[in-house]
Every structure is written in C-alpha cells, then in structure tokens.
C-alpha cells in the first residue's frame, strides 16, 4: 500500500491508463467542480475538498466519510474542470479502494447479492411479469434471470468469483446471501 495518490494511479491506471489518474495532481483547487455539483447543494460532498484530502493522503478520513458515496457520477465536474482533472473517474477509483478495504454499506453489498442470484441488479418478480403481459410482452425477458438461461447466469457468477467480488461483499454461496453482518453494516 502506497500513498492514496499512488494507489489511485496504480489501481485506476490498470483500467483508465496512468496518465488519466495522474491528472489529480493538476488540481489547482479552483472549486469549479464544487460550484456545479448537484450533490454539493444537498450533501456534505465537496469535490474540491475531496481532491485536496486525497493529495494530502487523508485516506481514512475520506474512506470513513459517508459523503464519498453521495456522488451520482453525473460527470458535470468532469466536463467543467479547467485543468482536465478526470474527476468522476478518480472518485470511482477512490470508492473502489475504499470498498476493497471493507467500506461498503449493506444496501450497496445487497446489489451484488441480486446480481449473483439473478444476473440483475433489479430482478423481476411476479407482479412485474403481469405488467409485461399488460403491454403485450412475454412475461419473462430472455435474460440471465430466465430459468432457461442458467448456464449464462453461471458465467456471470464465474466472473464474480474470479475477481473475488463475492469475498469483497462477504457473500455466502450456501445461503446465497450476505454472511453475518456486523454493526453499522461494515464488515
């Protein structure tokens, strides 16, 4: 584990390329990101401050702040930053690092449970099957949740196993649910 900046460049670099992540260093603290942030109007999220904290290596403070999760990834700041800081991608990578260290709420982990069970973050239920029939569609779409497509669903599960996502959310393959939760929803 290096500094937070180094980790952002290393981990995010694998996906976006290192130069993309290194734009964080270009931040001049002008605050234009915060000025247009729809979250900042309503929550404690201050994008400018978050980046300064990241550069100051305040890892625990960032990872433990609930507002880290109040960015909707709207990309407004990303498009407006005068220094070309790849803001939203940096925020997503900071969240990836936080999640890897166990900072992930139960509702967020549950989304993974739905995907592991059905292949869908928002699966279908009997009521929705009726809605489909009401508009003249097949009651079940031919996706991973369809009983005919078990093999395809298994492929999605294999991905989650290969990348250890199941372990990250503490998924129990026996019960197909989260393993015992500790206080505050943290692992």
């Amino acid at each position, binding site marked *: 584990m290096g500094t937070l900046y180094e980790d952002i460049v290393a981990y995010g670099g*694998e*996906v*976006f*390329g290192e130069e993309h992540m290194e734009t964080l260093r270009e931040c001049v603290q002008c605050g234009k990101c915060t000025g247009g942030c*729809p*979250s900042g*109007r*309503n*929550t404690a999220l201050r994008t400018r401050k978050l980046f300064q904290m990241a550069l100051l290596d305040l890892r625990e403070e960032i990872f433990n702040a*609930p507002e880290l*999760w*109040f*960015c*909707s*990834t*709207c*990309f*407004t700041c990303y*498009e407006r930053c005068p220094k070309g800081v790849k803001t939203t991608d940096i925020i*997503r*990578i900071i*969240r*990836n690092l936080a*999640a*890897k260290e166990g900072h992930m*709420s139960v*509702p*967020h982990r549950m*989304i*993974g449970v739905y*995907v592991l069970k059905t*292949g*869908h*973050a*928002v*699966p*279908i239920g009997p009521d*929705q099957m009726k*809605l*489909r029939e*009401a*508009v*003249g*569609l097949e009651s079940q*779409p*031919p*996706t*991973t*949740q369809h009983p005919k*497509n078990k*093999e*395809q669903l*298994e*492929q*999605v599960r*294999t*991905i989650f196993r*290969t*990348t250890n*996502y199941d372990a990250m959310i503490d998924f129990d393959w026996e019960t197909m649910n989260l393993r015992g939760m500790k206080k505050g929803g943290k692992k």
Partner: protein
Amino acid sequence: MTDDDLGLTYAYFLGCITPNRYPGIEAATKRIFKEFGIETKEMVGASCCPAPGVFGSFDMHTWLPVAARNLSIAEEMGLEIYVTCNGCYGSLQEADHLLKEHPKLKERTNKVLNEFGREYKGTTKVNHSIVILHDIIGLDKLKERITKPMNDVNVAVHYGCHFLKPREVRGHGSSETPYILEDLVKVTGAKEVEYKDKLMCCGAGGGNRTADTVQSLEWTRQKLVNAIMAGCDCMVHPCAFCHLQLDRGQAEMNKAFGTNFNFPILYATQFLGLAMGLSQTECGLDIQTTTMPEKLLK
C-alpha cells in the same frame, strides 16, 4: 417494402429497469422501431449491464468483464446494439471504449471471459435508442407519422447524465447545449421549455439512491419543482433508471416529504408513441406511478 421500411436489425440490450420495472418503455420502443422497419432481436442470456456508477464504484475489475460479456453476446449475433437506459449506455459504451483503447486491458478481460469460452472482439457498436430515432429514422420520417400532434403541450426535457457525458466517450457534442431530445420533442408539435438547471442529474446514479434514498429524492424534487415552475406539462427523457427515480420517486417523495406530486414522466418513445397514435396502454403509461393528463392523450 414501403418507403419507411429501413430493413435494419439490432440486438436489443434490455438491462434491468426497462424489462423488469417499466416494460412500457420496451413495448413502445419496439413498436415504433417496427413501424419503420427496424427489427429487434433480444440479447439472450444478457445480464445487468452492470450499473456503471454502482459496480464501477465498487470494483472496476468486476464491472468490466460483466459488460464485456454482454458485448460478446451481440458480437456473436453479428449485430449492433441498442439500449433504452443511460445506465446501460453508460456501461456498455464505456466498456467498449476502454477495451478498444487499452489492448492490455482487453487481454486481461478476455482471460476472465475465456474461462467460459467467450471472447470480446470489439466488433459491435452501442447505440442509444434516441440516436436511432434522431439519426437513423430521422426527423422527417418521424414527422410524417405524427397523427396526434402535441401542439399545446409544454415539455421539460431531461437528459440524464450518461447519455451526454463524458463527451470523449459519448460523442454527441456539447454536454451543455444538447439538441437531440429537443428535436424529438419538437417534431411532435410540442413546445420544449427552458427551465432552471435543465441539465441537472435526477439524483439516482452512482449508488446515491441506494446510499440514501431520501437524500437522492431531494435532487429529484428540486428538478421537478423547476420544471413545474416553468409551466411544463410533463417531462420527457431517454433513461429507464431516471424514469424509476422521476416516476416512482414521486410516490416515495410524497411519503417522505409530505408532498403531493403527480407530474407526468415519459420515456422519449412513450411520448413519441402517443403522438404517433399509440394508446397509453400500448406505451405502458397506465401502469406507472404518475398519470397522464387528458392533454397528452386526446
């Protein structure tokens, strides 16, 4: 073959919210496309895209192979993709973009897919349904089919975020002065009305809705108030996930904030569908939270 028969076939990536919560979006889109000779083939065995702000926020290395697996299904079909959700667009187009830009990432991703005999090749293209309407079918052809003009209807356009941004991936020009939805609304004879913070996010994305639903609804409430204050009769948008937040969100915010919202929310093809003479039942507008006023149905 009539003049309107485009003779095209696309792979439809359904995603989650469209087929599992708002099948009216699926039905209206398929019906309109069929009118113009665009055939829809569903992507059998596709999964969640997976949600870009959500899975992208938790683990990019899981998000990417799941998206690549979905892309590989369309590649096998030999077809380009269309989507009806900005989340699906966000994920699939971004994944396609990254995998094409970074050969090493493609190699790494294919190692995961190879475990079950799949491969991402980079041979499909991800299209948004509203771009097919605007650029492939085109405004002239659409205009000819408007049988119930929306002449006295004031519309608030809502883009959602991942249709326009990031520009370097989406490629639809300016994210501050867009025109595609505006054109589609105007072709029906409706008036597109400028309102405060028109380009503001609905609040749902990035796991924000899941992190704190009531807080996320406050963004939505502001958005709706701005549209209502500008005299709009309804909101038209291109995203199934926004639809969930904007439509079902009104019931949730009425409960959480003690408000009394019932502001009509329509996906672009639902709005066009009504103007082309489809019934509200055919567009699934009578099986959602917000109800349609006479003005939109006459």
